[in-house]
């Protein structure tokens, strides 16, 4: 459970872990019913309306203005998104 939360980038408390473990167990056993269907030779459907090779015309169109996009960011520096440190000094 803690591993799943980590994969999903969700910081969870011990209480939440306990609650979710119970609920997720129930939900997973309910949805596991899909396994009752004999479907070994059935093609999967990933999309209701299958389409392939959808291209748009190769034409340059203007992007959103930089200041409009950065206006909604939680932190900005030098016209860029500012993020917490990613690399340590040794790296």
């Amino acid at each position, binding site marked *: 459970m803690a591993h799943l939360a980590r994969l999903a980038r969700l910081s969870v408390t011990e209480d939440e872990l306990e609650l*979710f473990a119970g609920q997720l167990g129930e939900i997973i056993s309910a949805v596991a019913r899909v396994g009752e269907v004999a479907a070994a030779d059935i093609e999967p*459907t990933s999309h*209701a309306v299958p389409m392939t090779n959808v291209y748009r015309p190769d034409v340059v169109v203007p992007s959103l203005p930089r200041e409009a996009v950065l206006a909604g960011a939680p932190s900005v520096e030098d016209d860029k998104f500012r993020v917490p440190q990613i690399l340590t000094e040794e790296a």
Partner: protein
Amino acid sequence: MSDSSLANGGSGTDLVRLTAADTAASIRRGDVTAVEVAQAHLAQIAKVDPLVKAFLHIDADGALEAAASVDEARAAGEALGPLAGVPLAMKDVVVTKGLPTTSGSKILEGWRPPYDATITTRIKDAGIVMLGKTNMDEFAMGSSTENSAYGPTHNPWDLTKIPGGSSGGSSAAVAAFEAPLAIGTDTGGSIRQPAAVTGIVGFKPTYGAVSRYGLIAFSSSLDQAGPFARTVEDTALLYDVLHGHDPCDSTSIAGLSFDATGAARAGAAGDLTGVRVGVVRELGGEGYQAGVTASFDDAVATLKGLGAEIVEVSCPNFEYALAAYYLIAPSECSSNLARFDAVRYGLRVGDDGSNSLEEVMSLTRAAGFGPEVKRRIMIGTYALSSGYYEAYYGQAQKVRTLIVRDFQAAFEKVDVLISPATPVVAFGIGEVVDPITMYRNDLCTLPASLAGTPAISVPCGLSDGLPVGLQIMAPALADERCFGIAAAFERATGILQIPAVTA
């Protein structure tokens, strides 16, 4: 605003009870101005929304400005479109340039998008007046609007009941006469189920008919935006504004041309002679409230009385729709919601120099997402993880194929399929706490979502004083057929009279 400003168009109460079609016609004739119509609806919102809580954000200035430009266009002699000057409530999952857009989540609180969704642009270009943004289950995950981070919306029929979900703010706004039109999105039933439990009409289009560009994604292979209104004709008029190809959405179908309005008007003649209507055996019986079943049986009799041939049809794999949906939708959501990474928009928590980027992401997502969103992200992460993928997500996709085949087989025998839109009428706010019980509200609507086929919910009576919806499902791309049959049914039963909101 004062009632004296409405002197030309009758009282504000009259104006908010008009259909969209009649409102637009009155504006075109000059009986009333678009500004007066907008003012009447803003007054109704001021009066009832403290009780209903349909709106998260009201844009009075923007609405009056948009209405004024419709009036100016008319004064300049320009021809007005079929919905010019008609107010609309927009679900908060659709991005609107410069207007707050939260998708019902704390993680986007205060965010103002830098662009308009394609459907927002289409609505503005049609001269439709957007009144504001409506409440919803967080990221459209829910069937009651109780999962909104901003508190629940109340059903106008009975304020202690849920208005359905996830588009519950939009359905409640229309049922409370705060707007004659609204936009919802439907991933597993989020237009049809709220329409059913608030006694209005709601339509989920064929997947790909309406652009998803600018719709905050929940489950990309299922999400479709669509219209709400109090009549079939109004729903069709709005649908004719929404559909059409969009190069910004690679799943958008090219070369579509529907005339839903024409289909609704033709259908209102009411003759269904030669139309084959299939009753889906698997969408009824055990687990369906007696009042819902009784209203549905009456609806079947009505359709028969209009000349339709009624056939019972079996779709055996519909039984697995719930399980398949609750694997596919969470899987896609776990991937889509990865974009909320505390970098580009919205909330950031823990950025004090002591936490790594990954820790800031995890803390932000923990603080910004509600419990249902977290549950679905974790289910999706599990279903997609190595070793489980084939048994869960892969198998769910195969079941999806079988559901598509059930529809194909059924549509060889009948023109449309029908069922109740929901197994139960609106339940009490706070009454359903177990996630799986909540998921069962989508039982009737999930098959058409998984198959990408169009479906409409139209009011078909009351059970214990609360509305019941009839679902009419058509083959992919036969969207017009839903409107034709719904209009015939509505003509036969009369438009449902919705009571005024009382505290």
